[in-house]
């Protein structure tokens, strides 16, 4: 919401343009209405920048083009509508202005580059004002640059700038490091194999034999039987020992208490186990003979 300064009447279609003025190292910088080129205003030792800009704002002067003097208003002809335009400045660092007594005022350095020189247009007589009126400031001289010390941000400000920079960089590092590590796929585990774990090949487990393989965190017993490759959880349902294959009498046996399971179905054949071994789905790749166990 744009607030008009007190005392302004709006009688016709209004186009407002905003100039942004700020104080930087003892000189005022202003963004013009038609672009971003800064207009530089040189201040004399007795110039109060607030008063200066105030005067600029109050004076309704034509502005022909950026860089051609300063004005506060000009008749505009935008989009075929005849408008009057009002320009005024805002002070994002107004509080800074209040501390101007502490900032050395003097001839400011004429600017950082030649292109930003503002061409001089003789200023018309300032409108009569209160006692705060000071002699007209010398506005942006295109004349030879008086050498002045290059603008140096104060040490405190520099320190704070570093502090903020450090803050931003360290936060980003803190956040990005684990994220990037997270994105790199892990070498171990079954995270990315689509739920299938390789249990060797048919060559490893000849017909009539069996082997216990670790499948993630679950030991599984894989058997090569006449009815194909069978796989079961190798955790005995009695007291949790790891079973093995007893080729001599063709059963899955638990060495702890001699429980026995049927290798074709996992059912209990004899001994203390109360329940059959859960089946694990196994498939064999035809070409390579590799045995895959499905997780889950």
């Amino acid at each position, binding site marked *: 919401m744009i607030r008009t300064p007190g005392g302004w009447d709006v009688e016709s279609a209004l186009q407002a343009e905003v100039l942004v003025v700020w104080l*930087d190292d003892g000189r005022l910088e202003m963004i013009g209405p038609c672009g*971003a080129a800064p207009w530089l205003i040189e201040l004399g030792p007795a110039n109060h920048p607030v008063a200066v800009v105030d005067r600029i704002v109050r004076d309704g002067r034509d502005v022909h083009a950026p860089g051609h003097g300063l004005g506060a208003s000009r008749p505009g002809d935008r989009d075929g509508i005849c408008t009057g335009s009002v320009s005024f400045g805002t002070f994002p660092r107004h509080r800074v202005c209040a501390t101007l007594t502490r900032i050395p005022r003097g001839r400011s350095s004429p600017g950082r580059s030649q292109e930003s020189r503002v061409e001089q247009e003789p200023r018309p007589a300032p409108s009569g004002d209160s006692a705060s009126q000071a002699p007209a400031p010398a506005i942006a001289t295109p004349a030879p640059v008086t050498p002045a010390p290059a603008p140096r941000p104060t040490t405190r400000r520099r320190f704070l700038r570093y502090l903020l920079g450090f803050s931003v960089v360290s*936060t980003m590092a803190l956040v990005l490091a684990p994220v990037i590590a997270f994105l790199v796929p892990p070498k*171990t*585990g079954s995270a990315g194999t689509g739920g299938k774990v390789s249990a060797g090949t048919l060559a490893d487990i000849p017909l009539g034999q069996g082997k216990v393989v670790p499948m*993630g965190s679950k030991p599984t017993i894989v058997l090569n039987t006449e009815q194909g490759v069978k796989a079961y959880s190798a955790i005995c349902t009695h007291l949790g020992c790891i079973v093995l294959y007893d080729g001599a009498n063709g059963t899955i046996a638990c060495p702890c208490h001699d429980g026995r399971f049927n290798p074709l179905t996992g059912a209990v054949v004899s001994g203390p186990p109360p329940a059959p071994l859960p089946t694990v789905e196994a498939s064999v790749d035809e070409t390579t003979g590799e045995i895959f166990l499905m997780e*889950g």
Partner: protein
Amino acid sequence: MTAEIEQRPAPEGQGGWIEKRTGARELMAALLHVRIPVEARTLYFGGIALFLFGIQAATGTLLALYYKPTPDAAYNSIVSIMSDVSFGWLIRSIHHWAANLMILFVVFHLLRVFYQAAFKYPRELTWIIGVGLLGLTMVFGFTGYLLPWDQRAYWATVVGTDIAGAVPFIGDQLLLLLRGGTDVTEATLSRFFGIHVLVLPIALAGILVIHLTLVHQLGLANPKRPDPRDGPPQGATKPFFPDYILDEVIAWYLLLAILVVLASLFPAGLDDPADPLVTPEGTKPEWYFLGVYEFLKLVPRTIGILLPIVGLLLLTVWPFLERSPEVLMRRRIFVVVVATAILVFGIALTVVGFRS
């Protein structure tokens, strides 16, 4: 100073590379260079909730790169995230804690707005949308809870959807819709995953944008003085940027520290894999539903379901029920006392739920 860095244009022309190609400076200025009342005391709760949503979106996206949404693979994918993936435990634990904290802070934010009567003119719409956001956040929590597919998740979902099924008239259809069938199965998991990862983020983000736009448009409420109906609010202001923003960012940093501590000391846990045939003892929903759950045990089922729903509706339209322009707490004692009583009751029920 940062402002100066930003606003300092490139020496060679009218504006920097980005500025020339986006014209963003004006927009940023419009968004940031607003003013807020000096008496505003948001306690930064809303901002924290926003921050946590950002965290959730980021960690959730990362988790979705490894999570597998089928009953066979879900559990093991979570185990893998916790044990095999670098910092997987951190991302998942942060996601877990930020979820709980987000719900907590959304509730805190609602309470702050309520007690400061910041929902009154002209912010009634903002309030209604905010209640909607609270609802969305709770649905986020509910749908996300199922995804690990362990015993706790599975049975809490069974209990939760059972309660939904007890809603009069539409209960059965609602149950079918939620579960994708009569029981909690892989259909439920797919459904919850899609809702949690696609539907809700888009919905929440969209509605959040509206909420934030309204906040921007209307500015922050003044807890000492209601907004007049016939003009802009009077009173001293201070700039949003950088004063308020700095405080907000500090609060976010502190939240980040809390999240890191919680995630490191209390990593997200995992129960046994879900077994539809074995009901564990003491199944109960997550803490944010515990209050309603305990309430259901005290009163007949229909009342237990309807009363919270009616309560929620009342809460939503509250700005149109409490129409006086008073914003000071001592001028709305009755409302404040009743609301506090209900709040204390809800907290007591939740505590009881914890103990049981």
